[in-house]
């Protein structure tokens, strides 16, 4: 084995070793690295309910209700398996919509009601023109009618 090959092997070994070490560390901190908990995780007691934390999921269709003061909104965050009712007072981001992703930070009350201090919209990876979005919606509608 030539000296330079030995050196290269040593470098490769070092990179792999650092990589494995990082993987183990990240794995150990896994629960601290998540940005939000899903309603199912909250139901399973995985979320730190004693302090403020974030929940994430979809805004349930038809669940958004604005209060008379114009600022407070009630809605339900769901991951299609479990759901959590949320109350938030403040300005909602542009992308906040029923059926779209949302992340809310706040506290979970004893009654299972989540009081949010901040609401962030989570955008998905789909980019398309409005006409295409309409076409997709039409197609889904047609499909669901056929299924029924």
């Amino acid at each position: 084995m030539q000296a330079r090959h030995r050196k290269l092997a040593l470098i490769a070994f070092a990179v792999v070793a650092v990589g494995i070490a990082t993987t183990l560390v990240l794995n150990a901190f896994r629960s601290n690295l998540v940005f939000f908990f899903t309603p199912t995780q909250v139901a399973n007691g995985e979320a730190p309910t004693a302090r403020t934390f974030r929940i994430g999921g979809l805004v349930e269709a038809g669940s958004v209700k604005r209060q008379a003061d114009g600022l407070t909104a009630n809605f339900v965050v769901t991951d299609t398996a479990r759901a959590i009712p949320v109350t938030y007072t403040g300005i909602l981001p542009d992308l906040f919509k029923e059926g779209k992703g949302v992340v809310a930070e706040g506290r979970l009350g004893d009654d299972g009601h989540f009081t949010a201090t901040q609401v962030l919209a989570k955008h998905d990876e789909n980019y398309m023109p409005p006409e295409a979005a309409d076409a997709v919606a039409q197609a889904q509608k047609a499909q669901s009618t056929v299924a029924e």
Partner: protein
Amino acid sequence: MNLNRYASPSIFYPLAGRLVPVFAALAAALAAAGLYIGFFVAPTDFQQGEGYRIIFIHVPAAWMSMFIYLVMAFWSAIGLAWNTRLSFMMTRALAPTGALFTFLALWTGAFWGKPMWGAWWVWDARLTSELILLFLYMGYMALQAAIDDPRRADRAGALLNLVGVVNVPIIYFSVVWWNTLHQGASVSLTRAPSMAQTMLWGMLVMALAAWFYTLAVAFARVRTLILAREQRAQWVRQMEHEA
């Protein structure tokens, strides 16, 4: 043809000199085409309206920020194993451009995040690991500047790059491994892109422009590094003489 001969600074110097204007012209032309597609041809997004057009800068910059670090780590490994002077110079020449693209990705992301998410900045895994990448670039440049002996500076910097390179897969896969606010990849090698054709084209043309820009500035920078480090070499003196 023996590619290894291009590892010699005296042969690479004139070659890079001829390539810089070509790459710069290509970068300018592609950037003009990409921006035209991005701003005038690509349709409005169905949810985000016009605000999504930041992706024509944001995504190519973010790709470049990760890719340049991989290339720097590659040259660092080659330099450490083969003791080639030029690979260390290449590493050094790429760092400022990598830092620039990282900063651009973070900055444009913040601009987009405020109206779309409702926050300039959040500490999710994607944003945090990209910020660490910026610190890695700045740390590398600071380390290079802090050590007077260029050969020792090269080795120390190379080691930092080889340790820091583990961050690149973390950035890329952060949106898969953890719940993040940042959305997943719209474009990947394993499946069809989840975006409209013209939007995709605009982004890819801008990415190519970023590539050629990087090549042009890195080669221009490496030429000055070669001259600075080889100033006592015979071929540099001869060139000086002729000029």
